[in-house]
Every structure is written in C-alpha cells, then in structure tokens.
C-alpha cells in the first residue's frame, strides 16, 4: 500500500505493508529517531505525536494513520535550532543513554501544550508511558519543570 502523510510539517508519500506498524514504516523511511524498545506499548521509545496527541507508533497500524499529521522529535527542533524542551533536557542532565529521550521529549511537549504549568504529579502522570532505565526519572522530572519555567519566561517559538 501507499499513502500520504504529513511528517514534521512536510507531505510525504510512503509505501508500507497492509499490516505494518507505523513505527516500522517511519524507521524504514529514515525516521530512525523513533525507537523500537518493546513493540508492546509499554516503553514509549516509539512515541510520536499523531494529530498532536502522543501515541506509541508501535501500537498503530500505518494504514490507520494515512493522511494524518505526524511529528517526531526532529519535528520540534534539531541540533541547530533545538526546542526549549530539548535544551532543558540537556541542561538538567536528563539525557544519559538517550534512547528514551525522543519519546520523553515528545511526551513533555504534549503535556506542556495542554498544561503549561504542570504540578509535579501532573508531570509524572504525563510520563507514565515512557520507561527510562538510566536516570531513575529524577533529572527528567527536573527537565520538564525547567522547560515549563523557560517557556513561561517567554522563551519559545513553538509552544
């Protein structure tokens, strides 16, 4: 099959198998920033934004996402123009191996769009679909607070 997708703001026609998971379609077409950690819907390494909502791309049939808007972590900022959230993760020391980071950053992005001043329990609950084995979440939670603060101070273009 093939279909149109809007990925990180650009239209793409991608080919895929009829029973393929969106995770594999994206990775196959070079979006390797979307990671495969479990294929169960438990780890959040494959998290993307589908029509602005965080979902596990391993739990989505590609065919069900045609014509939809997809955002990966590269869609919110890059090495040259990082998003505030990405900077906050760096500043807080929230990136160890970095395998969970794209998913964590996007889950944070979705949270702050809905709730720019989250409390600590709200932060923790918003990250309940993302596993991290390196950080113990301590500095990740700090990073989200820091990002909210930085954005609150009027820092960013996207949020």
């Amino acid at each position, binding site marked *: 099959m093939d279909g149109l997708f809007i990925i990180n703001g650009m239209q793409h026609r991608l080919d895929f198998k*009829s029973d393929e998971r969106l995770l594999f379609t994206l990775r196959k077409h070079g979006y390797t920033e979307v990671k495969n950690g479990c294929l169960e819907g438990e780890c959040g390494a494959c998290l993307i934004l589908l029509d602005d909502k*965080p*979902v596990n791309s391993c739990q989505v*049939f590609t*065919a069900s996402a045609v014509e939809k808007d997809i955002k990966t972590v590269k869609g919110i900022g890059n090495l040259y123009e990082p998003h505030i959230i990405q900077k906050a993760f760096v500043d807080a020391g929230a990136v160890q191996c970095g395998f969970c980071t794209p998913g964590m950053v996007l889950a944070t992005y979705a949270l702050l769009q809905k709730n720019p001043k989250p409390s600590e329990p709200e932060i923790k*609950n918003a990250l309940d679909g993302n596993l991290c084995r390196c950080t113990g979440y301590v500095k990740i939670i700090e990073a989200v607070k820091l990002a909210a603060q930085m954005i609150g101070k009027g820092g960013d273009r996207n949020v």
Partner: protein
Amino acid sequence: MKELHWYYPETLADAETLVRQENVLPHGGGTGLLLRNLTGVDSLIELSRLPLRSIKVVDHNVEIGSACTYADVVEKMAEIDPGHILIKCLHHSANTPLRNRITIGGSVAMFPPWSDLMGALITLDAMISLTGKNSGDYSVLEYIRDKNLRANSLITTVKFKLLPRKSAHYREIRTKSDMPTFNHTVLLNIEKNKIVDCRIITVGTVLKYTRLAEAETYLTNRRIENIDVAEIGKLVNLKFAGSHIDDPEYANIKAGIELGRMIQQMVRS
C-alpha cells in the same frame, strides 16, 4: 501473508455495507488487533473517519461514539459530569499514549480481563447500538453473553443514563502503568443515610467479571452507620486464575479488603 484491504468509510451507511461483507473486522485503535493473528481476515474498516467521535447528552442520556478514545471520554465527560464513574475508570487506564488510541468500541468488543471500562458499563446498565447484520440496541450484558452479536456488526454508540450516584473504581496494579489484575467498580445510591441501591462489579476473575451479589445484598437497604467493612470483605469470594496470579487466595483477600475500603470511603464522604 496476503495483503489486508483497508476501507476508510466516511458515512455510517457505507460502514454498514462494508461490515456485512465476509471476513472483515472493524479497526478502532488497533491496540487489540495488533495482538491477534489476522489470518483469515481480508479487510479492516478504519472507523476514525466516521461521525463516531462525539459524546452527546440528550435528556440525561449519554451517547458515546464508539470511535472515541479513552482520553476523549475522560476529557469530554469531565465537562458533562466531573465526578462520573467513567472518568475514574479510564483516567489512569493503561498509559497516556495508549489512552489516545484505545477506543470504546474496540474495548467493548474485545473485553480483555484487564478492562477498566467494562465494570463501569455493566454497573451503568449501558446499552450499545449495533449496525450491520445485527442492527439494533442491546444491553452490554447481552452483547457480552451472545458472541453471535459480534458477527458482521459494528458498535456505533454506547449509551447510558446520567444518574446521581456515588461511584468509585479501584485498580489492583503493581505499578502505575499496569494492566490491573482485577478492578472493582462500585455505584451506590444513598438516600437519607441509607443505601437504596448498589452495584458492584469485579473484572479480572476467572469468569472475566463477577457481580458481587452477596455484598450488594448486604449493603442494600442498610443504613450507612450500620455498615461493617470487615463484613463486606468476608462476603467477597472471588476466583482468580492464570499465570499472572501467583496467589489466587491472596488476590481474593486483597479484593475483599479493597472493596471494604472503597465502601467506607464512599459512605464517609
């Protein structure tokens, strides 16, 4: 494997025609379909383009479109009735990204033993509307019992009455993002310090779900000051099995204690 065909109907009429075909299945969120073997399935009907994503209230009757996700329901029910049982059941179900995919229709059709939804729908005496071969309205219980209703039929809406009830939900989980080993849903109608009606459903037992009739009988028509929480625990006699349950006897004890606590909390507040 041969290719699946995907349909993207935009009207219910089209969907009805499609669902009547051989070897087709509706696709809600896909989180359940991804677990099953799709051999023998020729096509899937994607439901997200159908007008089934809204929640309506008419005359204290709530109608939830079957393509609504758990997250949709939590968000929209909060506007309708912030203390509603469905919010309590679903707002911590699975995890945040999954709640954006799991649909009401798919969850009714699949009814896994860890379902956070079905206890509430049963206690609410919810009805479902089907379109297709078995077009019509059915109670959720009928739908659960009669597997034939599933064939070539699409759940379009789930309906229930808005009633002033005290409600509570308890999930037995190991971590916050976990499928519950069992969960309790309780609805109480308390008038003048007396329980006049009560519904208690436990999902996750060997029978998939169990109505706690003895506890219901104990509570019904009882004044709240006469409720003995320990007594409720003793009336819980649930059977659990499966490799995920190490100690079925303990699971039952735990179920009893937690139910007692729920009731205590509910009558106190």
